[in-house]
């Protein structure tokens, strides 16, 4: 848990943003720590608005925002110097060649050796072969890779990617995830990824924030969240499953009991010391306990639980 001591990469306090009648962000509080951060949420949850506010594209109605410790309102230029961005549906100048475009980006970033940086970025995303072709001729996948390359030029401290896997085929997606992992592990570049694809987040991120209806509903490390939301389901293996399951179903703390092969899958109603309760019940019904362990769900399950809980609360 050493990660928690580190200063937050992104910090938002009481941030609100309204577009006409739509409240896009509602007194949002956010703290993201770690190396690869994931921002997930359903469509219209406020992900892109949040990223636009982080980068100064959109001004918030209220609240404080800090990125890498810098205040977005007062120190935006310092943030831009340290952050690479792949916006959602970016518009690159199509008359430029891939390498020509990246060279201009490198110069705007004030790099002293633009050609070297460009070559490295193109190599990292696998576009070296088509570097001299006009961007107009690029496929959707190449265009997205170019977006990743321009975000990586100059090796920024933090790279913000809004839907980085959009338009990519499964192999292309894997490549992007591989680039993220490599830059993060080998060069210490931090990433903030906003995406719908939970598998990508689960595979690459060490910290996630779940946003829905303009508020952060849950945040923490992937392990913590999975544990938190999976802690209510247990897998129990005993010598006489039928008898034990029947007795277990009668207890007040169990919500449901199911069978999975020879194991019992029990869902409890709240915080229960399941190990102690199981041992006691087993003694009463005279069965031997072989295994009691929590069932860890995927991030997909966590996400579903958080969003549906929010829907229940709002209705």
């Amino acid at each position, binding site marked *: 848990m050493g990660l928690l001591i580190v200063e937050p990469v992104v910090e938002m306090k009481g941030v609100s943003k309204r577009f006409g009648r739509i409240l896009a962000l509602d007194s949002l509080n956010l703290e993201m720590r770690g190396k690869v951060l994931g921002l997930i949420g359903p469509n219209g949850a406020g992900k892109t*608005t949040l990223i636009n506010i982080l980068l100064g594209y959109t001004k918030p109605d209220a609240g404080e925002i800090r990125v890498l410790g810098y205040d977005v309102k007062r120190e935006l230029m310092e943030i831009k110097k340290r952050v690479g961005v792949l916006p959602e549906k970016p518009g690159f100048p199509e008359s430029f060649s891939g390498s020509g475009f990246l060279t201009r980006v490198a110069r705007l970033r004030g790099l002293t050796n633009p050609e070297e940086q460009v070559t490295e970025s193109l190599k990292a995303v696998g576009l070296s072969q088509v570097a001299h072709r006009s961007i107009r001729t690029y496929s959707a996948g190449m265009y997205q890779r170019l977006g990743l390359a321009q975000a990586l030029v100059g090796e920024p401290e933090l790279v913000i990617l809004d839907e980085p896997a959009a338009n990519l085929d499964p192999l292309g997606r894997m490549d992007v995830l591989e680039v993220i992992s490599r830059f993060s592990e080998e060069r210490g570049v931090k990433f903030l990824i906003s995406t719908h694809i939970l598998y990508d987040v689960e595979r690459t991120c060490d910290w996630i924030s779940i946003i829905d209806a303009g508020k952060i509903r849950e945040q923490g490390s992937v392990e913590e969240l999975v544990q938190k939301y999976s802690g209510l389901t247990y897998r129990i293996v005993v010598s006489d499953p039928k008898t034990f399951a029947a007795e277990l179903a009668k207890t007040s703390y169990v919500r449901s009991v199911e069978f999975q092969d020879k194991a019992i899958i029990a869902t409890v109603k709240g915080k229960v010391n399941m190990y102690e309760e199981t041992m006691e019940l087993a003694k009463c019904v005279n069965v031997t306990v072989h295994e009691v362990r929590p069932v860890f769900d995927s991030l997909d399950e966590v996400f579903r639980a958080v969003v549906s809980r929010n829907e229940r609360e709002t209705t």
Partner: protein
Amino acid sequence: MRGKLRELIAWELQDNWAFPILELVIAITIIQVIPIVSLTRGYVEVAKPFFEAMLFILVISTAIVFGRSFGEGIEKRKLIVLLSYPVSRTRVFVAKYLANLLTIFLIFGSVLLAEGVSLFMFDYRFPLVIWGFMFLYLFLTVFFTSSLMTFITLAVKRFGLSVLILLICIFGMEYWLSPPRTYANNPIAYLSLNLGPYSSVVYSYTWYYNTLNIGIGRSWVTQTFFLTALGYVLGGGLILLLASLFLINKIDLD
């Protein structure tokens, strides 16, 4: 600091070049030069038709170049990409404005050059200073139109819609300020894009010749009309430009 502004201008010029500018230059040259080279006789045949015939072409070209740069830049999320690099909105605005202004001057400057070359070929002794006044006309018209167009585009954030609004504004003003509604002896008539830059040039031209004592002594443009026209075009353009600068720093790019 200057390097980034230069880089942004170069970026914008390269992007502008993707637009069929060469074709535009050729088209305008043909429209403008053919009537002149057919039978040129002097100022009336060269400068005046240029001012009158070019107004519509100038307005449309300026609207397209500036609208494409700002409006389409917002619509197609090119501006968002540009602003993700360490450059301020003000610098991006200044670079875009200067690059587009340069683009327009390159287009119409080429046309004027083609005109001059064609006159030279016909061995016509034409006072070169008239070209200076043509450029003055060009500058005044383009400066006002571009400032108005930039302001409208940033306000509506849409390319097509902003071109439409600009045309309604400019030609609506022309309609209300032209005879028989308003006559040339009324200063209000000079608050138009047709008469404003043209009368400023006529006054300057007369003043130039009078100062050098080499010709014309009278002009239908009085000093009051001249100041009204120049104030409208330059002052109005400057106010719209500053308003656009304010707007680009305030708008949400979502």
